[in-house]
């Protein structure tokens, strides 16, 4: 069966990889839940993921909000629905664009750095050294990163939501000539708790996926500089794809009727 053979092989490889990843994730999560945790290391990762991602997430958010207002205007002006812009901006940013774009940017910034750092530690035997010094690498390296990713992404997205809406506000007021008071009122009227909360839940899931992919690919990297490079690429690509896929399913969970 020359046609079925490669298909079967690809399927087996895929299933094996899924199994490995699941075991890795289960092991990592179990270490997040069992003491001792390392508050110093968690704090360091929180600063790395949360604080240092602020500029890139903020820039992404403000330009996204600005272009959203501009595009909606050119579209909606055709059937005189310009007044819906505050509505469109707040819903799009809080539900989708805030979490997804922040997630993708952080995947590029943090996921890559994590895979490179842990991958280098792997190929230079630093992870073996941790083991021989009776320190579990899952507890010392991976758990702090997962916890930091899980908690910091929602905060980043909250900031991105505010900045994104502000970007839309700036363009609407100063370029499109909206009345500031009316725009603000419409924005606040259309803002719903469920939109914001669904965005924050997404952010938490994305934060987990980004750090998990960074750690997983770094931890399993082999073969020197090339292996670390491949791990970095895989971490970013797989995190981005998982973000986009899981985004759909979380949306369905929250909003499907």
């Amino acid at each position, binding site marked *: 069966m020359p046609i079925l053979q490669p298909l079967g092989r690809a399927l087996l490889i895929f299933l094996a990889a899924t199994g490995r990843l699941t075991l890795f994730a289960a092991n990592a999560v179990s270490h997040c839940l069992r003491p001792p945790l390392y508050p110093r290391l968690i704090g360091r990762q929180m600063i790395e993921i949360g604080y240092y991602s602020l500029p890139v997430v903020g820039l992404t958010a403000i330009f996204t909000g600005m272009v959203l207002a501009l595009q909606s205007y050119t579209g909606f002006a055709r059937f005189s629905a310009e007044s819906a812009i505050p509505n469109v901006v707040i819903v799009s940013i809080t539900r989708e664009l805030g979490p997804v774009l922040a997630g993708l940017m952080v995947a590029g910034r943090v996921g890559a750095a994590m895979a490179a750092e842990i991958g*280098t*530690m792997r190929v*230079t*035997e*630093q992870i*073996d*050294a*941790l*083991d*021989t*010094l*009776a*320190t*579990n690498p899952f507890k*010392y390296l991976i758990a702090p990163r997962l916890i930091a990713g899980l908690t910091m992404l929602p905060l980043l997205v909250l900031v991105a939501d505010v900045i994104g809406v502000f970007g839309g506000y700036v363009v609407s007021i100063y370029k499109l000539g909206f009345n500031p008071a009316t725009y603000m009122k419409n924005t606040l009227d259309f803002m719903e708790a469920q939109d914001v909360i669904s965005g924050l839940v997404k952010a938490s899931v994305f934060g987990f996926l980004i750090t998990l992919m960074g750690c997983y690919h770094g931890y399993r990297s082999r073969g020197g500089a090339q292996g670390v490079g491949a791990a970095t690429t895989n971490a970013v690509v797989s995190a981005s794809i998982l973000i986009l896929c899981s985004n759909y399913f979380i949306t369905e969970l929250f909003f499907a009727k």
Partner: protein
Amino acid sequence: MTAAQSDSVPKIRVRNLHKSFGDKHVLKGLDLDVGAGESVVVIGGSGTGKSVLLKCILGLLVPEEGSIEVDGEEVVGMSGQDLERIRRKFGMLFQNAALFDSLSVWENVAFGLTQGEGMARAEAKEIALAKLAAVGLGPEVGQLWPAELSGGMRKRVGLARAIATEPEIIFFDEPTTGLDPIMGDVINDLIVACVHELGATALSITHDMASARKIANHIAMLFDGKIIWAGPVSEIDSCDNPYVDQFIHGRAEGPIQMEVRAL
């Protein structure tokens, strides 16, 4: 099997160890005994599985078959807290020192004390600086970062880290590789001194015969996944094993054939 066992239970006892990577069978039924207080050096060519042997004993790699006993306790298949308890008996000097880049030199040396044993940082720092002094590095080196050290200094810091917890057993993975002959000899002297002072059992792997002669009581030769000769270091020159003879004299011709194709 290294001869002349004074104790009935050796510190480390390896029997019929098998380990493969894919279809490459690296260890093919390896047997090795390391008696308490002995210094055994395993010699063998590159890629013969010397590092794999050490990693199997430390539980970093899981062998397919065979038994490894440390103080009479089976470690193959051990995990979690039991494995951590066994690992506390060990110190290891890695080939490229494997210092943690994100920690300063003294934090590296103190790592086993602060993380493994939960000692307070101030107390651990004192011990770390004492261990650095023992390998000939001043307290100012403790404040540096691993990236700022030369190869010889990294090895010495790695040695200080390996002895910081005063382990019962110390592994040395190619301690002199990548060093100039003088620095290599300095490291050899330090290893002999540290092992002697701690009364530790040492297992080293190397292909540097000068280093092997200096630090070993017993030498074992690994070839084709098995220990093909083992004996006291004094007997290595008079043994009539052609493999050992070829290796210690570093000849290209002999029973060990390197797989090289003609250009």
